[in-house]
């Protein structure tokens, strides 16, 4: 009897301990991501289709789903065969490298993850580069909408020469969304100004980035808007690299003008939220033209850390002292200061990038500024040299 007791107790004990130790590592899950990371095309006669070799390869950002190849007016795209680098293990349909007729509509591609649970659709198009026929390009900020993924923050569209809307304006709003998703659209750093100088304008307010942002040494988010791309992949690790300034531009800019209002807030704080009573916040409004490739012809983009200092800069127009305007619209009208000669061939072949930048805190990229500082901008004009 006693032996029986012993045996039962030992079995129960052993079973319990064995059950506990079955928590071991399982097989690696299949990849769940389904991105197009790169799109490129190989053409036998580059000059017949593209303005330059860099336009044949597109690095696709993780939050983008439109891929646009910019091509010459007379390029034949009836059997255009783009190739794609996608997430390892994912599949793409139609196949990478398959030829399609891109002459009328974009072609839609679907990428499905290795685990089969996720998919993303991308549209790929071949656009003829439209050229402005006038020497003055208007930026009136009348075309905006809430972001298509989350409907939380505003995005702006520029008007292209053919009257269609472009995606060339970028903001850091997406970065703010990561840690402040519950904010209303008008509580983001960059939002629509209903009563602008003329129709709608853009309003920029330096915001507190929330305790999640502050915990990452990024306590404030200045409102910004710029021609270029916001590459969210760097938003935490290298925030200055998240602002990829500039879009290819084929005219020679001469003058940068528009209207603004500014109101600095206080206290002025640094990235540790330490107050600096001696400093007063200021806004920033500027435009830069730069050479968009290095000496070997490789693509080159200017970021938050070199947009005003790079050797590749050709011309700058910057509004000096964006300070308190006491609620009045103040006009600005700045001539581009050229540091280098323009090469007309390179200009025609998309060898220069242009950016326009607005920020509610001049040192916002370093997370220095005053929460509440407000910049308003409207009716921006870019005057370019008349073509002969």
């Amino acid at each position: 009897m006693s032996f029986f007791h012993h045996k039962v107790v030992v079995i129960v004990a052993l079973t319990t301990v064995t059950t506990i130790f079955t928590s071991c590592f399982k097989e690696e899950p299949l990849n769940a991501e389904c991105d197009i990371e790169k799109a490129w095309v190989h053409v036998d006669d580059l000059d017949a289709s593209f303005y330059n070799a860099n336009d044949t390869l597109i690095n696709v950002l993780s939050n983008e789903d439109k891929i646009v190849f910019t091509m010459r007016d007379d390029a034949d795209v009836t059997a255009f065969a783009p190739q794609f680098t996608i997430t390892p293990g994912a599949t793409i349909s139609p196949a990478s490298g398959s030829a399609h007729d891109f002459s009328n509509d974009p072609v839609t591609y679907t990428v499905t993850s290795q685990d089969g649970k996720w998919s993303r659709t991308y549209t790929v198009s071949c656009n003829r580069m439209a050229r402005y026929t006038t020497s003055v390009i208007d930026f009136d900020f009348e075309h905006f909408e809430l972001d298509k993924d989350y409907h939380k923050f505003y995005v702006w569209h520029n008007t292209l020469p053919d009257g269609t809307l472009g995606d060339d304006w970028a903001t850091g709003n997406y970065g703010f969304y990561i840690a402040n998703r519950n904010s209303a659209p008008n509580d983001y750093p960059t939002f629509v100004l209903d009563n602008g100088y003329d129709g709608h304008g853009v309003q920029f307010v330096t915001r507190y980035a929330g305790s999640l942002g502050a915990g990452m040494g990024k306590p404030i988010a200045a409102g910004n808007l710029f021609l270029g791309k916001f590459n969210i992949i760097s938003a935490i690790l290298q925030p200055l690299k998240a602002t990829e300034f500039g879009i290819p531009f084929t005219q020679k800019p001469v003058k940068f003008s528009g209207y603004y209002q500014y109101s600095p807030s206080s206290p002025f704080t640094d990235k540790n939220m330490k107050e600096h009573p001696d400093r007063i916040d200021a806004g920033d409004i500027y435009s830069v033209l730069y050479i968009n490739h290095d000496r070997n012809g490789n693509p080159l983009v200017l970021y938050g850390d070199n947009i005003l200092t790079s050797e590749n800069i050709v011309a700058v127009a910057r509004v000096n002292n964006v300070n308190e305007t006491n609620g009045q619209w103040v006009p600005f009208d700045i001539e581009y200061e050229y540091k280098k000669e323009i090469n007309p061939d390179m200009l025609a072949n998309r060898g220069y990038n242009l950016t326009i930048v607005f920020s509610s805190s001049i040192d916002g990229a370093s997370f220095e500024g005053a929460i509440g500082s407000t910049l308003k901008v409207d009716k921006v004009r870019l005057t370019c040299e008349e073509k002969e």
Partner: protein
Amino acid sequence: MPNDGGCQNLQNFFRNVEGYGRLGYSIGGTAPLGMPAEIRKLNKFILQPNVAFGADLIKPASKHWGVLAGIHFENKAMHIDATVKNYHMQVTQDGQSMEGVFTGNNDSHAVQWTFTVPIQAVYKFNDKWKLKFGPYFSYLASCNFDGFAYDGYIRVNDPTGAKVLLGREENERGNYDFKDDIRKCQWGFGVGVDYFFTRKFGVYADFNWGLSGFFKSSFKTLDQTLYPIYATIGISYRFK
């Protein structure tokens, strides 16, 4: 029943009760039951100052069986570093939240100073060996759970969302602190073995498996419920 009769009963009850003091060291972790496939690799497991001390009383009920009740004060701390893939997290702070799927490394540090009351059945094989099993109830006098996700990337919301890289430095990683979400009152099940090599001195090994989730049920950051699972070894002294 007369008063002195009750007192007599109490004295009779305690006459054959045995008393033990314990001093031990715990090793273990606060972990999901059944390792999710998203956790790929344990990079580091750093031993913590997990001392445990306390006293138990055993009331024999028959030749082999008895009942144990005690009070222990112990630390169940953990510091691990693991590699994860597609690990879903949602962090809420000050009304704002951040949700995403993380692939990379995670460093977690937990501290739990607890008062624990075990109530166990005891099976005595002989004077040397005893087996104990039964529930325990804990109150966390002091606790913490913090850490950071680093050297990896988050996909915002789900695997199709924007990709954001995280680095290793303080301002490049995803720091978290879930101290306020820890359940203060916990319970679980324990099994243990006592071996006495003299009449007074012995060694023991206990295994305590938390059955109440480590975090409050309102805590949604992690998909898996975490349970404190710890083993303790130590020396025991019979004082009665």
